[in-house]
């Protein structure tokens, strides 16, 4: 929309402006791109450095000035990450957490958000206030009693503490989905009710299919949250065979130190691949999702 409105306006201004102002306009343009590109370098350099380091031989690691293109690139570093440090196990473990989390998060948050938006019951908005209030409750306040509960349940060193709570709703996603459900016309539900559909049928057959974009946002963010999570695994998983990608890499850093940094970096590079792929395949969902979450707060 911005693009269609702008040209006519700027054309009109340009015809009437003297040369001096046109020169400043060109300068502003140049300056604008200069700053944008400068920041792009700041944001891109770590990626380049990561990839470059992951392909270095041990001798190339501590060289001054730094080497950018390793000669020859040590692709074997990526293999080492799998052989020496069980990177494959870490990936499988992470998926065994992330996939149930995504399924549970989408199902439970949709169900809960439906109860907070499409059904009118007395006291609903007061209870929803409680949902929002729990958002500012820091995880650090509750994690010690939770740790002790999980220990009693014998859940330490299992994936349960990382998955079960996700199946019971997250205020942030409830909020997001509720917002979306409220935007759907009330007539949809009324028509279903007239036809004698139960609330559950209306939910699964009418509302859920319409809410696909919002559910995609939840699924995406939940996957990234689980994939990137560090705090949960570091507290609840103690056995190396249970490690996730994040704490596996952190552990490599401690166990193998600076001399093997190249293949630690190879593992690090691989840990970012799913995120990057997801971003490129679901860019729209990301941008819409993040705008949705940030603005309506």
């Amino acid at each position, binding site marked *: 929309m911005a693009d269609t409105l702008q040209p006519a306006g700027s054309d009109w201004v340009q015809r009437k402006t003297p040369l001096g102002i046109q020169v400043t306009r060109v300068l502003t343009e140049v300056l604008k791109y200069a700053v944008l590109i400068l920041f792009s370098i700041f944001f891109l350099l770590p990626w380049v450095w990561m990839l470059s380091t992951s392909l270095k031989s041990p001798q190339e690691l501590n060289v001054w000035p730094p080497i950018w293109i390793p000669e020859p690139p040590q692709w074997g570093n990526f293999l080492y990450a799998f052989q020496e440090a069980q990177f494959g196990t870490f990936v499988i473990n992470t998926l065994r957490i992330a996939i149930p989390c995504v399924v549970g998060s989408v199902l439970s948050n949709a169900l809960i958000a439906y109860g907070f938006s499409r059904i009118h019951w007395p006291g609903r908005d007061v209870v929803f206030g409680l949902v929002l209030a729990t958002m500012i409750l820091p995880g650090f306040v509750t994690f010690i009693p939770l740790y002790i509960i999980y220990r009693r349940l014998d859940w330490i060193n299992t994936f349960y503490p990382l998955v079960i709570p996700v199946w*019971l709703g997250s205020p942030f996603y409830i909020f997001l989905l509720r917002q979306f459900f409220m935007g759907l016309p009330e007539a949809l539900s009324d028509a279903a009710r007239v036809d004698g559909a139960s609330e559950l049928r209306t939910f699964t057959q009418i509302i859920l299919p319409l809410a696909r974009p919002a559910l995609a946002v939840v699924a995406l963010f939940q996957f990234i949250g689980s994939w990137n999570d560090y705090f949960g695994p570091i507290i609840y998983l103690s056995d190396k065979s249970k490690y996730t990608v994040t704490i596996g890499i952190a552990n490599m850093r401690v166990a193998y130190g600076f001399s093997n940094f190249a293949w630690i970096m190879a593992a690090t590079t691989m840990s970012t691949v799913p995120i990057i792929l997801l971003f490129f395949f679901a860019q729209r969902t990301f941008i819409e999702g993040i705008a949705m979450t940030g603005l309506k707060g």
Partner: protein
Amino acid sequence: MTTVTQVGKKGLFGDRLTRETRRSLAVGLLFISPWIIGFLAFRVYPFFTSLYYSMCFYPVLATPKFTGIANFVKLSNDSRFLDSLLNSAYYAVFAVPLGAIAGIALAMLLNMKVKALSLFRTIYYLPSITPVVASSIVWLWMLNPKSGIVNWVLSLVGIDGPGWLGDPQWSKPALILMSLWGVGGAVVIYLAALQDVPRELLEASELDGANKARQIWHVTLPMISPVILFNVITGLIGAFQYFAAVHIMTNGSGSPADSTLMMSIYLWQTAFQYFKMGYASAQSWVMFIIIIFFTIIMFKLSGKWVYYGGR
């Protein structure tokens, strides 16, 4: 909170409810039942238990023994705890405003009819969804004083770079610099907000002869101020709980010389290295109160600078 639930109860169980409302109440509660279970088991119960533990002597293998405010008295004399408070405050005071300024500035640049917008947006945004462990390992290596590229870039302009994470003076600035790498999430949020600023307002101010700077100050910033408030508050809450990056880069130690010992790191050490669950709970409550305090302050101050007329 108690008054709120009482009002709710009256509404919930008053006898003026028709059969139909009763039914929708039952169905509604059924739909939100996962949340009710989660709320009671994973929020309410641990919340009050943690308050109780904070007043207990509780080595993890023993049973908690009530000691009143002893933990809090001890905290006020614990120099490491006070250090951790100052470190967290230092981090929050710099990282949050710098993140907001950088986020808004970059979003404004991207909002100025930029070619290849989605390319720039991607470049800026990707770091913010990168696993913290990845960014921490990469920055750890970039900030290496002897062979890292941060000091190499500085040496290109003739600056002899500091020891960064190895130097107590420079370790926190290093963390703040690193946090700016993740500013892209905020950029996307601000950009969406900027695109919502009504064009008529900007055109009207232009006709009234306002220059760009005044336009930004009097139109754009007020219009996006609710988003700024939201981001600053969530940023503050996040900054006070800043944990993963430090834990990864210092292996949970908060080194050098405790200069990166954040509240969260010390709390983790107390609980999982010293196994003092009561003392750790007391720390978590101080953290909680600080977070609530600043959230309330931000909301109170927001009346002076946040403009809600736009929505």
